[in-house]
Structure formats: C-alpha cells, structure tokens
C-alpha cells in the first residue's frame, strides 16, 4: 500500500501529463479544439433543459420552477455520468493498455488514476455547463454545494473499486466486459435519475436503496435541486460499499498480478 502511494507520487508528472494528453489528443486536428470540451456537455444539458421541459413539463413537489424536471434530471445525470464513465473505463483499463502492461515496467496504479482523472475533468466541465444553464433557468445553487466534493469522493471510490474488481476478472474472463455495459443500462433505470424515488411504491423505495448509487444520486439531487444537505444516513451505505470494493480490488490485484501480464 505504501509502495503504491510512493509510486504514485513518483509518477505524478507522468499521470498528470497523460491526463492532459488524453484530453488534448481527443480534440487533435479539430478546428475548435478545446472548445469542444465545453460544447459537448453544454449541448447535452441544453437538450435536456429545452426539450424535456417543453415536452414533459412535470412539476416536482417542493420546487416551483417550470424547468423543475430538467433541473432534477441534470442533477442526477451529473452524478450518474461520473459513476458510469469511471466504472466503464476501469472495467477495460487493463485490456486497453495490454501492450503497455506486457512490455513496460511501471506502476500499474497509474492506469486507473489516468482514466479517473480524465473522467473527473469531463465531469467538472459538465458541472460548469450545468451551473451556466441553471443560472439561465433562474435556479441558483446554495452553499450546500460544498458537500459535493464528499459525494464526488464516494462516487469515485465506488466506481473505481467496482470497476477495477470487475476489470481484473475481465482480463481472464472477457465476457465480463461484454455483459457489464448491458447491466449498466439496467442499473441506470434502477436508479432514481429520470424518476423520483417518491414515485415508487413504499416497498420498492426501500429496495431501491440497496442500490448504492441511489444514495449518491439522491445526495446530488438534494444539493443541486432542493438546496439541502445530503442525508448522511443514506450515504453511509454507499460509503461502506465503496471502501469494501476498493479493498476487494486491491486484494484481487495482488492475487492476479502474476498471471495478468501472461493473459493479456
């Protein structure tokens, strides 16, 4: 563990410049270059805000803005997109970098950190775009957004822990990489992002809390939509699961590392 942290520190420049290069190469040879980084999330958010509010101008209890549903949706999407991107990239991080792993000796911990860093930057840009659209819609977040870094940390830990655990097994059993994106789709609809958990029948509501992402998404929603602090009791379960999954990932890596380069 200590060795891993030391290696990370030693490779910090490499990790940071890899994140930078990953983003830079994505927009290489495009006219607008880095501007696309803002335009993509802005367009995504604008679509939700304009179309969904016009078509599904559903009112949410406890908020009187005619764009209430769009605001609710964006808060959930912000949380889910970070979870889904980090999770999906950790799932394939070893396979995607198979050549590098087979041929170069470097601390493997750098790889998930690079994909996480790049996903985090995407998410921060999405967050910026959302704040811009929110203010255009006349909805201003309160100081409770100071809770967001904590939620972010739980989201990342859970996504990295679960993604890497499956990602390690994926090296040996490639079906994992095929089936997980399908499950991720189900997972999205099992999480109260496009609906509110209040819409669920009482017994389903408790069941949906078994989904660790539910608590996180609800936290985002209470901060960004209602301006309230997140419920720490609901967050406790995702946090414990996140820690558990990180430990599992570390354990699996220790066990699998000897065979991993052979199988890639």
């Amino acid at each position: 563990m200590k060795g891993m942290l030391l290696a990370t520190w030693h490779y910090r420049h490499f990790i940071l410049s890899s994140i930078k290069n990953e983003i830079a190469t994505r927009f290489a040879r495009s006219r607008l270059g880095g501007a696309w980084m803002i335009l993509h999330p802005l367009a995504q958010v604008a679509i939700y805000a304009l179309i969904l509010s016009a078509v599904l101008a559903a009112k949410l209890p406890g908020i009187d803005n005619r764009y209430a549903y769009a605001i609710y949706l964006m808060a959930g999407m912000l949380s889910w997109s970070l979870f889904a991107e980090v999770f999906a990239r950790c799932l394939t991080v070893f396979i995607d970098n198979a050549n590098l792993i087979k041929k170069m000796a470097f601390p493997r911990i750098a790889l998930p950190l690079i994909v996480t860093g790049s996903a985090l930057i995407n998410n921060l840009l999405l967050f910026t775009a959302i704040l811009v659209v929110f203010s255009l819609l006349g909805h201003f977040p309160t100081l409770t957004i100071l809770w967001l870094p904590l939620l972010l940390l739980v989201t990342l830990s859970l996504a990295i822990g679960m993604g890497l655990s499956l990602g390690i097994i994926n090296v040996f059993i490639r079906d994992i990489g095929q089936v997980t994106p399908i499950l991720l789709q189900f997972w999205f609809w099992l999480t109260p992002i496009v609906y509110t958990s209040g819409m669920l029948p009482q017994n389903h509501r408790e069941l949906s809390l078994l989904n660790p992402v539910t608590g996180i998404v609800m936290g985002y929603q209470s901060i960004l939509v209602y301006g309230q602090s997140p419920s720490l009791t609901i967050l406790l379960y995702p946090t414990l699961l996140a820690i558990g999954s990180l430990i599992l990932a570390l354990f699996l890596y220790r066990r699998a590392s000897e065979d991993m380069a052979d199988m890639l």
Partner: protein
Amino acid sequence: MSTMQPVLEVHGIGKAYRYYGGEWRRVLSWFGLPVKPREERWTLQNISFAIQPGEAIGIVGRNGAGKSTLLKIITGTLKPSRGRINPHGRIAAILELGMGFHPELTGRQNVYQAAGLMGHSREQIDDVINDIEAFAEIGKYFDQPVRTYSSGMQMRVAFAVASAYRPEILIVDEALSVGDAYFQHKSFDRIREFQRQGSTLLIVSHDRSAIQAICDRAILLEKGQIIKVGEPEEVMDFYNALVADKENSKIDQIKREDGKVQTISGTGEASIEEIALYNAKGEPVEFIGVGEPIELRAKVRVFADLETLVFGYGIKDRLGQIMYGTNTWHTKQVIEHPHAGDTYAFTISFPANLGVGDYSVQTALVDRDTHLTANYEWMDLALIFNVVNINKSQFVGCLWSDPVIQIEKLT
C-alpha cells in the same frame, strides 16, 4: 572482479503458465479455495546467475527457449512464479522501441511521455531533452506529430529516449533495427560507450559474431533451462551443435591443451580421422607466412551407407569470426552413396591470404549445403594455426590484399 558486488543477481527463477481448465476456477483459487491448476507449463526453471558490474553477457538459445520470458522477468514486466531478482541499479531495456507513442502528439511530447513512463521526473527530462533532440537528428520534425514520421524517424526518437540516461544494466535485443546504417552505427556506439562507463550489458542475439565481438560471457538457454555458461566462443559452438541436434546425436566438448574448448557433435556416421595443414614442401606446419600457399588435408572415414557426403570447412579468427568457409556442395563435388568402411582424403589448397594472428579451422561432414538436415560430424577448433608476417610489408587487418601503390608527383 569476484570481490565486487554483482550488479544483478538472479536466484532460482522459474516461470509457470498455469491452466485451470476454466477461468472461473482460477478466480476461485485467488480466494484460497483449493482449486488445483489442471496443467502447469514451466517455460523457465531454475535460472540462476550473477552479473558483475561492467560485464557484457550474451543470452542465446533457440526460439521458444525462454529468452524473452527471462528478459521480461528481469525488466519487471512479468513476475516469476519462483525465485527472485536482485538488481542493484537502474535497468533499462531497448527491446520494444516506440511503445506507447501517440501519433497525434509531437516527438517532444512523446519523449516526455515515454521518459515519464520509464519513471523519470519532469526535471530529469528537462535536463536531457536537448540531448535527445540532438541525438535523434530529425530536425524540425521533432515538434511535429509522430503520425507524420517515417518508421525510421520514430525509431530514432525512441532509441534516443530509451538511451538518454546511462543505466546500470542495459538490456538490448541485438536483432533490433534502429533505422538506417548510419543510425545503427550511432546507436551501437552509444551502447558501447555505456559499457565503457561501467554499464552492464545483457544482449539477446542469434548472431554469433555480435555475441563474440561484444560479450565476455554467454548463457545458453534450452527448454527453459540454462544448459551452458562460459566463454562466448565455446557457448556459441555448443549452440551451433545444438541447432543440428537430432536423435542418436551427441555433443562433446573437449578441453584442448591450450585451454580452448573443442566442440564435436553429430551422429557419427562419418568422421574425420586426421586433419592437418601442410606447406608447399609437404611438411605439416603450425606457423604460416602471410600469403604462403598451404594445403588442408583431411582423412574421412564413413561408418554407415549414406546417400550423400559433403565436406565443409571454415577458417575462424581468434574471436570466432569466419574469415572464409565453403563446402563440397557449393563446389559441386558431392560424394554420392558412400558405403560403410570407405575412406576419403580431402586436400584443399589455397594461399594463406590472412592477417597476422591465431586462426582455427572448423570442419563439417554433412549431407548437403547446411548441417541442419543431417550432421554426421561437426568439429569446432579441429586445428589451430598461426599466421606470421615473414616477407610482406607491414600491414594491419585480417586479410592480405596485396596492394600496388602508385605515386606520381603532380606539381
């Protein structure tokens, strides 16, 4: 030498590939469940050696002997199933040049990436970036995307990064091609320079002249095990015999009086009974004057009915490089259907147009142009002779090339 601390110690390395007959069984085994692998294939077993600082070691062996696996374990990309490696100092490998180069990034950006991957900090890279640019010699391309590079230019940048810092241990794949002849020379000069400054070299090669020219010792791997360690010439002779190793064939290495090791291999269906060099007067000689006409005479006995018999010979210098060699296949003098008990005398006359020094003769009794289809007998160091300069003008080199020099005063 022996009192110095080895720069690399390899203790009992073994590498097994385990097959579980189902990957879920492998995953279960990580959790301590008693799942036994269905099959274990050992690609390396019991590999131990130590390398002293500044030594150059050649690793030879046939394809699949385990050379690459061993190197990957030493560089740390593969983990051994058994044993351990103690390196004292930084290991750099020039094996996979251009790994991880991104086509959209410039040469300079890729250098930072690649050197970062090798574990260097930004400040360390800043210190050498100008040297790297100068060494690669690709001009303004250095600041253009790598996708615009030719493969040779990519190789140049890759080699320049890989060799930007002098490592304690440098691993080189000799078959590696680094662009054109000019850059090839330049890169090998740099490798030799590292060696002069005390770096240890570990070279993988099939090329005996490279191994013999550079290495102090050679290690021969066969089926995942070290089967020979020693002087490069001795090991390469053994390797050569091994390549032709067939059933009913044996390899002998005999220590000669002068300390050199003679390697004899083959099936023994034909054998050289006598071999010697004679001068123009028909006297057996060991010392020969430059340019003197000489005869190599060999008496060969056949022990089995054979389809064909070809006699080949080669003259090697003291480093084992072949000066000249041919056989009776190429001269269209193949003996057809020799019978058991036949004997033949081969007499080869030629002028000793060689430079001053020690030479050895290797002989081969085979069925056609190579010794890979049938090797009746292969003998390295069949005899040794000396070339001395008796009556020629002073010259250097390994070849006597009688010159006529004309000088005219023009003004």
